[in-house]
């Protein structure tokens, strides 16, 4: 298949360079919100929504604002990227929470509780920055963000399933909780490494 095709971008973001297992983004919610598959799915959906929307806004901010405004000889406002992006994300999350509360009580009950956690989810900011670093155009950035979020959801749902099963077993007390969770994540990461070379 042609290199740089959208398909290989999607496959890459979900499986090969999975946001959690390969890029180490979004570990905190990954460990924190994965005790049951239901909450995992909820978190995954919330992240997918916010991540795509965040990239949809931060990309134009970078390319149409920060890189266009000249400041002194030949330099632009690129150095304000971190501040601008995190403010966009934080505001976005606040806005989404307000909108959800007002217009869809059902959705709010399902996703709303995860939203505050998402602001400090390094995956959102991380993916937004990656789109810029990898010099993707607008369409590819959106696809990349969406796919990365799908990869996150996949990872968290699989993990939740394993954790639910673990909870039914007798795990040595001092290994239980986060330690065994991390080791499980490591084994899952090994499994995902098997995808290397896919989509080429």
């Amino acid at each position, binding site marked *: 298949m042609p290199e740089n095709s959208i398909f290989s971008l999607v496959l890459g973001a979900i499986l090969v360079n999975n946001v959690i297992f390969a890029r180490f983004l979004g570990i905190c919610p990954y460990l924190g919100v994965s005790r049951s598959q239901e909450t995992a799915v909820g978190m995954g959906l919330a992240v997918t929504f916010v991540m795509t929307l965040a990239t949809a806004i931060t990309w134009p901010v970078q390319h149409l604002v920060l890189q266009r405004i000249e400041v002194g000889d030949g330099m632009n406002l690129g150095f304000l990227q*971190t501040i601008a992006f995190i403010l966009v994300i934080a505001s976005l999350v606040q806005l989404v929470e307000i909108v959800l509360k007002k217009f869809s009580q059902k959705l709010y009950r399902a996703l709303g509780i995860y939203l505050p956690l998402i602001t400090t989810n390094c995956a959102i900011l991380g993916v937004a920055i990656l789109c810029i670093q990898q010099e993707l155009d607008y369409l590819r950035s959106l696809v990349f963000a969406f796919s990365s979020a799908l990869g996150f959801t996949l990872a968290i749902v699989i993990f939740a399933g394993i954790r639910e099963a673990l909870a039914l077993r007798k795990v040595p007390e001092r290994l239980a909780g986060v330690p065994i969770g991390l080791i499980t994540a490591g084994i899952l990461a090994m499994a995902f490494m098997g995808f290397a070379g896919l989509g080429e």
Partner: protein
Amino acid sequence: MNSWQNFSKGVWKENPVLRLLLGFCPTLAVTTSAVDALGMGAATAFVLLCSNLVVSGIKRVVPDQMRIPVYIVVIASFVTIVDLVLQAYFYDLSKSLGLFIPLIVVNCIILGRAESFASKNSMFQSLLDALGMGIGFTLALLVLGSIREVLGSGSIFGLALVSAECPRVLLFVLPPGAFITLGLLLWMMNELDAWRTRRA
């Protein structure tokens, strides 16, 4: 608690990574070598120090509802300063740490300490808290980074420890190794605790 306890709690008893279980993303991502670990620890500690001081300094002036966005702006500013300084004077380090320097802004430790401690305590105590937490964070990273570098690359701080023919356990510098090593480390901390309580 007195000032000394305030400082020392961050180093061991309430170590942000190993006890409070915060800040896993950079911990897993940049500890492939001891030097990177040290660099990241120092950068994060610097941001933590400055943001704690500033947040504590302006705590009376900031209206309650606006405090999170204001803290975020403060933290993001210091992160940007660190980013620029690293690019200017420690170029190789900034390339190794890459994406994770701007991600310091969403490191739960920094916003966490600002929100839970600095906004409620004096500047001096906030300074001690930040120092303790910063040192604790750096130490945790250093331990993890050293283990992974020694086992995975056969070197420490860039200096070779074994000959080129000696096989290295590559897994440790790859993503799975990060998860597994941290998991095992946390398990050992729990075992250590249990052993101490048995002795007492």
